[in-house]
Structures are given as C-alpha cells and as structure tokens.
C-alpha cells in the first residue's frame, strides 16, 4: 500500500481531478437514482378501478333551453344508446375518474355535528349514477354497495343535502375513525356541518382525480346521485372491444342528438398512462444522464490509467526484472484505482447529501434514503475496476526486458 500512496503523491493534481469527477458523478447518480425510485413508486399506485376495461367520453349538449328534466332525459337516452353498443357491458355517468387530472371537486367534512368549521378539508368527491361501484370495478372491503333508492338528486355546487349513503376509502376511514369501524358512522357536510350522510361501505383503494404529493392520495368520498351536469360517461367492456367502441361512440351519441360537442374520449388505460407521462419522461432523462455520466467517468479513468501505464513502462520493467509477477503489477494498478475511486466516493457521499438538501429546499423533494448511497458507491467501484482492467492488463504484459532499454 505504501509505494502506491507515495507514487500517487507525485500526481496530486491528476488524482484530485479524477477524484472530483468521481465525487460529482457519485453525487448526481445517487440523487438521480433516488428520483427514479421516487417516480416509480408513484407510478405503481393502484387506481382502484378496472383500468383496462373502461372507456370514457365527455359530451356537452348545446341545447341551452333545456330544464333539468329534459337534460336528465337526454342523459338517460345517451346511457341507453351507449349500453346497447356491441361489447359494452355497462355504462355509468360520473363527475371524474382517478388520475383524470380534471373535474376535481373538493369539500370539507367533519365527523362531529355542529362544528363551525370542517375538520377534514380537501376531501375529493366522486359522484356516480346507479351501478357506479360495480361498473367501474371498485372493490368493497367492508359494507355494501348503494341501494337503488339511495341515488338522489344532488350537486356539490348547490349547498344542498347530500344523499343519505356514502362510501369512503380505507385510507380515509382510517383517518376519520382511527380506532373504530367506519360502517354506519355519520359524516357532516355543508355550512357548520348541517347535513349528514352515513357510511355504508369502505373501498380497498380509490385514487383521487389528481395527486398532490405523496400524502392523502386516497382521501375521497363516493356519493350516489341520479344525474350529473357536466359529467362524463364511462363504459365497461372487454379490453379487446375498446378500440371499436371508441371509434363508434361519436356516431352513437349523434344518433341520440347531434346538437352537442364531444370534448374528449379515451380509453382509461391511456388516460392513466398520460397522467404519468412527465414522470416517465423524467425517468428516461435521468437514465440517459446516468448512462452518459458513468460512460464519461469510465472513459476518463481509462484515459488516465493508460497514460500512467505508458509513463511507467520503464519502472514496470524494472519491477518485473527484480522479481514482481504479472499479478503483482495487475494488483498494483487495481489497488491504485480502488484507492482513488474510494477517495472520490467518500467526497461524493458528502456531495450527494448536500445536493439532496439543496433539492429538498427548492423542489419539495423528500430526504434521500441512505440506502441509495451504497448502491451508487458499489456502481462506481465496479465501474472503476472495469475501466482500469484494460490498462492494468497492458501494464502486466510489459516484459522485464524493457528495464534494460534506455528509453
């Protein structure tokens, strides 16, 4: 070990530069790996509905003369026409869907009556027409589906009494009643909690229409209603039928009434995939950056080691001549590389934590779990050893006779 260290002392600048490069790479790679893990964990969330069997369509009627009754009958006509489509097994109308990234109604609720202010705020509200639970494929963990008579006329925008029954998610139930069963519990809504509704069921999972951060992504209520102004139709079918149904929807709706604008339609699986598009793009970007950084660092190490091997050819010859084996020479360059990379990693880990603190401060990222640091360190050690192998083998191949040559 000692001769290696004293040899390195003669190349302080170069060694420091390589260490710096490895340290920067280590800092960026560990943070990039962490960002990738962070995004991947988001993308693995369960929506709580039958992702691959749903198609949605959003249609606005242009008949502004319509009163609520005629609007409802138009909705009913649309629903009937859509249900009759080939391959469609069910149709409901909803206000929004998990990860739709639009039409999110939020409200404040309480679990005690008569409070001046709601205790739980920003609870998302899903409204659905008869069949909502079954047709969307929402799984109930506890309790029951809505009864036909529970579907009521209700609009969250109208400050009126909600339907008498509500289904909540497991996550929300645990938040509202941490130590009790949620079934039958009252939820108070509206000004000073003057309206009450009771929990009849608990879903295992149902994501909000939009996620904001990591927390409370399943804080939502599901309410049974008869009609939804400004809502959307959701059709359930076998996955294979989706394309044909999507293609035919405009014609089917136009046959009911063509004074309308279809503002959007898509298969739900594609909607979910679109929601994570930015995350996927970021992951690819980070992977490319990690790849380029590692390649650059490796090539830098190769270039430097080759230079050193070339510079020391004479000395290697002398060492071989006085009895060093090929293995000794190989081991020498490998140990040297290990020392330099270790120095770089030590500095790099500090930089990684510092970089993470900077990112946390400015971009609301969570703290870097320390588990990512050994991964980055291991990657760099392996990379350094691989990069030095070629030049080191060339060094080991130097014949002892070189020592006798003057140049």
């Amino acid at each position, binding site marked *: 070990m000692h001769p290696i260290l004293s040899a390195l002392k003669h190349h302080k600048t170069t060694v420091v530069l390589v260490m710096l490069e490895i340290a920067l790479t280590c800092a960026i790679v560990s943070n990039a790996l962490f960002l990738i893990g962070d995004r991947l964990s988001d993308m693995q969330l369960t929506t709580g509905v039958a992702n691959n069997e749903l198609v949605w369509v959003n249609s606005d009627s242009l008949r*502004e003369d319509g009163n609520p009754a005629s609007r409802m009958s138009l909705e009913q006509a649309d629903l009937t026409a859509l249900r009759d489509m080939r391959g469609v097994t069910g149709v409901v109308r909803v206000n929004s869907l998990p990860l739709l990234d639009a039409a999110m109604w939020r409200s404040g609720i309480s679990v005690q009556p008569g409070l001046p202010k709601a205790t739980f705020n920003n609870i998302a509200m899903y409204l659905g027409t008869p069949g909502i639970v079954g047709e969307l494929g929402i799984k109930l963990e506890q309790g029951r589906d809505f009864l036909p008579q529970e579907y009521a006329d209700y609009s969250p*925008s109208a400050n009126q009494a909600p339907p008498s029954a509500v289904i909540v998610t497991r996550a929300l139930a645990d938040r509202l009643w941490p130590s009790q069963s949620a079934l039958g519990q009252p939820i108070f809504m509206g000004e000073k909690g003057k309206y009450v509704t009771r929990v009849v069921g608990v879903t295992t999972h149902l994501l909000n229409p939009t996620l904001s951060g990591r927390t409370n992504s399943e804080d939502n209520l599901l309410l049974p209603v008869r009609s939804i102004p400004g809502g959307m139709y959701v059709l359930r079918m076998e996955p294979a039928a989706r394309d044909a149904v999507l293609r035919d929807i405009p014609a089917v709706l136009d046959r009911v009434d063509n004074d309308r*604008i279809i503002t959007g339609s898509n298969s739900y699986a594609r909607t979910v995939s679109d929601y994570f598009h930015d995350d996927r793009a970021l992951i690819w970007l980070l992977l490319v950056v990690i790849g380029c950084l590692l390649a650059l660092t490796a090539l830098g190490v190769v270039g430097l080691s080759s230079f050193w091997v070339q*510079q020391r050819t004479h000395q290697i010859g002398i060492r071989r001549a006085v009895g060093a084996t090929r293995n000794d020479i190989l081991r020498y360059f490998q140990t040297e590389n290990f020392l330099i990379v270790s120095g770089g990693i030590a500095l790099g880990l500090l930089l990684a934590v510092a970089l993470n603190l900077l990112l946390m401060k400015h971009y609301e990222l969570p703290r870097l779990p320390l588990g990512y640091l050994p991964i980055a360190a291991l990657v760099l050690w392996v990379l350094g050893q691989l990069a030095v192998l070629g030049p080191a083998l060339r060094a080991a191949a130097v014949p002892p006779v070189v020592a006798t040559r003057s140049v």
Partner: protein
Amino acid sequence: MFGYYFDLAQRSLRRNPVLTALMVLAIGLGIGASMTMLTVLHVMSGNPLPERSTQLFYPQLDPRGMDDYRVGEEPPTQMAWIDATNLLKARKGTHQAAMSGGQVTVRPAQGGNRAFYVDARFTTADFFAMFDVPFARGGGWSSSDDDKQARVIVVAKTLADKLYGGGQAVGKILRLGQNDFRIVGVIEPWSPVPHFYDLTSGGYQDGEQVFMPLSTALALHQGIGGSLECWGYMSFNNLDRKTAPCSWLQFWVQLDTPAQQRAYREFLVSYSQQQKMLGRFMRPPNTRLHDLMGWLDYNKVVPGSVQLQTLLALGFMLVCLVNTVALLLVKFLRRGGEMGVRRAMGASMRSIFAQLLAEATLVGLCGGVAGVLLALFGLWVVRQQPAQYAGLAHLDAPMLYATFVLALCTTVLAAMFPAWRACRLPPARALKIQ
C-alpha cells in the same frame, strides 16, 4: 504564428484520435445537455412584452373576511367584480383592463359545419391598446361598448380564415352560443409567451380566438371559465359573479412613470381603507402591485421540473468539464519531452502556453459543433413531449451563438490550468527523462 500553432495542434490531436474523440464527446455532451435545458428555460422565462413590461402592473386587493386571518398573508391572486369595476372607473392608470378567460361555442353559419369550442377572453376596451395587440383589420371596441353591453367581438385571424376563407371578416355577424355578435376587428396571430395576463390555466397556453366585452359576456351568460376563489359558504348554482364573495378577474393597469406608480400604490391602500370604512373589506389594507416580470416571478411560472432538469444538465456539464481538464492535463503532461525540446530551442513559456491553448481551442470548436447538434436533437426530443411549453423549444440565433461561445470559453478555461502546469515543466528535467 497562430496558423503554425493550429497546424501543430491538429497534428497532435490526430496522433491520439481516441483521446481527442473522448474530449470532443465530453464537451459536446456537456454543452448539448446544458444548452437544451437552458434554451427551454430561456424560452419559458422570456419577457412576453419587452417594450411594455416595465409599465404594466398587476394590482392585488384583499377583500376576504376575518376567518383564518393571518398577518402578512398574501392577498388573493385575482379580483372580485366590484373592486375591478371600481378600479376601472377610477381611471388612475394610462390604461386599465379587467378580464377573465373561458370558452364560447362557435356556430358557423354555413349549414353542415358542426359547432365547436374556442378559447375566449372576456375583457374591457383598453385591453388591446394596453397590450399593443396587432390588428390585421378593424380595431377593438370602445368603453361605451363596455357600458352598453354591446354585442361586438374581436376574433383572431386563424378563426376568421377558418370561418370565412380569405374573405373580409370585419362587419360579419357570428353566432356564439345563443347570441349573434358583430365582428369589429381581426387580430394578427398574437400569443405572448408566457401567457402572462392570465396564469390561472397554465403559463404557456395559446392565445385566445375570440375577444368579447366582459359586461356583454356576463349579461348573456357566455362561458366564463378560469378559476374562482371564494370565501364563505354559498351556492355555486346560478352563481351571480357580480355579487358573489369570489375573486375571479385578472386586472392589469399601465403606469408609465415612477410617480404614477407611487400614486397607484397609495391609491390601492386608500381604496382598501375606504372599502373597510364602508364595511365591505374586513381586513386591514393588504395590497400588492407587481410589475409584469415580478408577477411572473411571484407565480413561479417556470415549472419546478424544468428548473430541476436545468440543474441536472449543469451538473452534468460540470462533470464533463472536470473530465476535460483531467484529459487535457494528461495529454499535455505526456508531451513534456516535446515541450522540453521546444523550450530548449528558445521558445518562451508564453508561446508554449499559446500553443497548448490553440490545441484546446480546436477541441472546443469541435465540441461546440457536437454540442449544437446534440442540443438540436435534445430540443427535438423536448418538442415531442405533450407539455404546454413543448412546442416553443427552438434554438434561436442568440442561443446558437451562445452555445458556440460557451463551448469555446469553457474549453479554453478548462485548458488554462493544464497548459499552465505543462509549460512550467522545467525543460532540463523533461529532456533528462528522455
């Protein structure tokens, strides 16, 4: 002299093509990545109205109740109808306009054409003069049109062409929803980036196709959209936007001189006090007056993800630079013998330094070309993304020059240290090793 150095540099670089390619690649990658992200950042944080931006201001008032009151809280980002009307009537600025976004249903007259939605801006007369909107034909409406709730509209040229082919659009009657409107003006394509005057639906949306007097839109229930921030419980069904305790209007005022700006700040405070005395405002005066760029800044219009990616690209470039410095150092020190001979033959330290920098300059030039190509590719990739700002990511001439200059400067700077180290090698020692 430099011709000779470049000739030497070329020979030296050719002698070790792998190392040279590695350096060019490192610089190219670093420059390409950082210029891609810097260009995106440059486009996204640009000044939407360079001639006017210092004279345009966005006043904020705080009409909320005392519930949840905290000292030092920021006022709402939009204005309630009553305040906007009062500020318009006060006429304290050179121009002022209240506005909101939304969409209207265009029903083309020709049979068979289906109705469609277009984005609309509901605003007041000064909008066009204040923002210097370029008209192709006709002009805006007058403030008396605002008062009369006149059924007039201004349309964008793209919509006019779509509806009437190349024909004259001004004077035509267009049906929007249930009502007929007379087109009084056609504007040239106009889409400021960022969409500064209304940031409530993303900072980088396209310009609107239809402009309508705000009072008319309210009276006829045309589709006013955008965000609505309300305080207190109320029904949103049959919402009366004129009286509801909600802020939903953007308000801009043009103030040309510092004196005018100072006066306007004072006016906002005295207006708040007056409203508090009248019992409409509850809180102590809480006003803001951002100028255009300040308003963009306040709203953090550039998404955090773009800043993060820029930071990443710069970090990447730093690694590339360190890599280049290390490689150049190795390359220069390896030529100790050659330098020693040149020194011994009488070359000064300075000329050795110049020779080495010439070599670095050549590497920098090649790296610059590689960087521009990579940046063009990177921006093409950005344009394929579905984000609102993606279509804007183009390399303009200044950024192209900047890329070259950056590549050259960074390489030459990176070469300074290795060249300095190399030219200080004592010639005698270098010769002796030989």
